[in-house]
């Protein structure tokens, strides 16, 4: 047990810093530091953002994106051997014959299945496969909300501008247009399925601002937005009895023996070690992101299974990636206590008035800058200005003054709007209604991914990609509330596109590992030796002591 004395969950020196913050609180109500100009934003990004500072990246040595830069952790996976040995696999014995194979059961994959079914694909011709349980995803952890321009003072074009500015004008315009234009339609769809968004007394939606938005268009379900959205559409999925396989990750795609077309996948039964062969007319990849690669040594908000499987599989099959060089660090991950380091503290806290405060009790940044800017400014305050609070484990962090939320919005707002957060801190002895919480940026989102068009198509026939695994829609930085939106909008779109793609499709495709032969040859031509295996499927957290002494007999 900890030997240092804790007062309300905090050690004494942290408590002293809290006292300073409490002294300045009254004068900070309603007074925020000025927002940064585009030039100031640029400056702090260059100084402190993990993507902009030197190191941590290198060039992709082979394949479609040869020469593009990406985080070292990602490049290592693209340079790895396949997870399977092709000679162990008998492709003549097909276990599942399906029209549409959906890989990943978060919001994206589940929505895709429903829309494929709505667009004429019978349920028995759809197969959804999951690495873990159906619903195990980053989606389920989304807290803040879903953007949709449905208020009278807002519009999809205004939403478009906010998102393209937040993305530093690098978003793919046609894909972004599809996102914002479909947003109200997607919102109506999930409301009609039964999602309970926060409402005002008169039954209208509560709409909140988010970092980088110029209107209030965030629709939240307390701080359980992703959980509520996912469990509702998953229940509909289950009511329709769409086939699903759990604990069966895809470990390799299958391609036609003559063309580059994707024609199925190899599944690996994680618990029995068996593999299964799927042949599909269309494959939708909805595998999410890469937080568990811990890029640049950052902790992450992401799900246990967020290990970049999708981009690895698609890249080997010849799919083109986009914006692989950018990573989203969420400004406010938990920095204390040790048990929850890196976990997400939603941006909605700042939307509702919580302010980042340094160790001397002073505000130093407008709370709702775009995420990359806000995160960089917090890193600067800790590591350049030396105004961060040091924790017993040696981390530095900044206070997020949460009690302000009740002061601004009235008593009991925090409890009502953030039950998940309150509960989490309470479990570790901290009352965020009375005391601030300590934050530091945390690895949150894979901005880039497999390049898609507005219909969810990729450069590879038969392969569709949507959600976090895709790249282009957010450019080099995503705004809050555009991720769950991305999942629902492009999940729907990809399901519909795949359904129309297979219409009248009679021919039975060949399945082969032709793409692996081609990929292997690229290594040879470049004079590089593949190292390790990918996809890795799960991160490794077993202690060093155990791993070093392990006898691998089983």
């Amino acid at each position: 047990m900890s030997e240092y004395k804790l007062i309300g969950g905090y050690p004494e020196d942290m408590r002293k810093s809290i006292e300073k913050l409490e002294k300045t609180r009254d004068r900070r109500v309603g007074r925020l530091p000025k927002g940064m100009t585009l030039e100031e934003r640029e400056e702090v990004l260059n100084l402190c953002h993990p993507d902009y500072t030197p190191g941590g990246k290198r060039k992709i040595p082979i394949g479609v994106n040869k020469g593009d830069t990406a985080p070292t952790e990602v490049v290592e996976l693209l340079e790895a051997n396949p997870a399977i040995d092709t000679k162990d696999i008998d492709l003549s014995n097909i276990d599942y014959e399906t029209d549409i194979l959906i890989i990943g059961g978060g919001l994206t994959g589940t929505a895709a299945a429903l829309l494929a079914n709505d667009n004429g694909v019978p349920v028995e011709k759809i197969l959804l496969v999951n690495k873990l349980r159906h619903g195990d995803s980053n989606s389920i952890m989304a807290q803040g909300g879903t953007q949709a321009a449905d208020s009278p003072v807002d519009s999809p074009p205004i939403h478009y501008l906010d998102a393209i500015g937040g993305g530093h004008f690098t978003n793919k315009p046609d894909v972004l247009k599809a996102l914002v234009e479909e947003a109200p339609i997607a919102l109506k769809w999930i409301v009609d399925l039964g999602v309970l968004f926060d409402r005002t007394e008169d039954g209208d939606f509560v709409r909140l601002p988010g970092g980088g938005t110029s209107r209030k268009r965030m629709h939240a379900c307390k701080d359980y937005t992703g959980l509520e959205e996912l469990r509702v559409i998953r229940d509909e999925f289950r009511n329709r009895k769409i086939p699903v396989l759990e604990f069966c990750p895809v470990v390799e795609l299958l391609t036609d023996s003559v063309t580059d077309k994707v024609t199925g996948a190899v599944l690996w039964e994680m618990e029995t070690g068996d593999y299964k062969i799927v042949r599909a007319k269309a494959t939708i990849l909805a595998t999410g992101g890469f937080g568990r690669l811990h890029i640049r040594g950052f902790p992450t908000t992401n799900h246990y299974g967020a290990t970049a499987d999708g981009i690895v599989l698609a890249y080997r099959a010849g799919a083109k990636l986009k914006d692989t060089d950018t990573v989203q660090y969420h400004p406010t991950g938990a920095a204390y206590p040790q048990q929850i380091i890196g976990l997400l503290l939603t941006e909605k806290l700042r939307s509702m008035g919580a302010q980042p405060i340094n160790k001397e009790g002073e505000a130093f940044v407008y709370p709702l800058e775009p995420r990359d800017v806000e995160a960089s400014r917090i890193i600067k305050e800790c590591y350049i200005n030396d105004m961060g609070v040091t924790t017993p484990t040696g981390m530095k962090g900044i206070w997020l003054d949460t009690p302000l939320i009740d002061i601004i919005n009235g008593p009991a707002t925090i409890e009502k709007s953030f039950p998940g957060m309150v509960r989490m801190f309470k479990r570790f002895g901290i009352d965020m209604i009375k005391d601030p919480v300590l934050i530091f940026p945390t690895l949150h989102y894979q901005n880039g991914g497999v390049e898609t068009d507005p219909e969810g198509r990729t450069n590879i026939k038969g392969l569709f990609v949507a959600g976090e695994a895709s790249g282009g829609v957010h450019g080099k930085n995503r705004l809050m509330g555009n991720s769950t939106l991305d999942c629902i909008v492009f999940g729907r779109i990809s399901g519909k596109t795949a359904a129309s793609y297979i219409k009248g499709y009679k021919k039975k495709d060949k399945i082969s590992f032709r793409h692996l032969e081609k990929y292997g040859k690229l290594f040879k031509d470049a004079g590089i030796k593949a190292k390790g295996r990918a996809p890795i499927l799960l991160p490794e957290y077993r202690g060093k002591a155990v791993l070093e002494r392990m006898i691998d007999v089983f």
Partner: protein
Amino acid sequence: MVKKDIMEEIAKANKSVIKGVDKKDIEHWATIYIMGKAYRVPADLTIMQAMEYAGYKFIRSCGCRAGFCGACSTIYRLKGDYKLQTAMACQTRVEDGMYLVQLPFSPAEKPIYDIDTVEYEENSFLKYFPEIARCVSCNTCTKACPQDLEVMDFIQAALRGDFKKVAELSFDCIQCGLCAIRCPAEIVQYNVAQFGRIMYGKYGFKENEFLEKRVTEIKEGKFDKEFKRLLSLSGNKIVDVYKKQQATKSKYLKKGGKK
């Protein structure tokens, strides 16, 4: 070179979180019993982190690692205590003398319903979940809930056909299955709650006029022209339009600002 040092410092501060805890950094220890077998683990870890430290690599019983997904349901007793307790392994710190086992799966029947035709009326709960009538109000479900929800109260509300109450009381449910596995009446509380919330969400509110109007406008192509203009702008022009829009934001974002 100052910049590179920052990233190195950050990575160093986070090492135990991303690579697993190193034995030499530990000052405080606890002994826990995983399925009856003793392991000495760092006292500052969650049950999940401690099991990993001990050498377990999870396939089941580990999901979001942040208290949202209900994968890591855990049952434990403390030494010398008769009480059987429940927790989420990712959200609970280990305690010395904890005897624990995880629940990898909870078998449960989910009724199938068509949300477009199902009747939104008081006895709908009983139609799909007749077993709720077997509730003996023992409150074991409530005691088992790691989210501290009033589970028995929402089952009682379901019996009364009170959709709103079911939705409100069960909203934070992460469907971990601990209530259902403990219930002597064999009720699957989290499925009852899911049904109640969906019905309330679908039928409990009138159509949102703003949203309906916006959807119609989009379908009628009201924004096509503006999109065409925005998509034709390049370079500095789109930046200028963006800046202009951002300059209007204080008017719309202040509390009670323009709707």
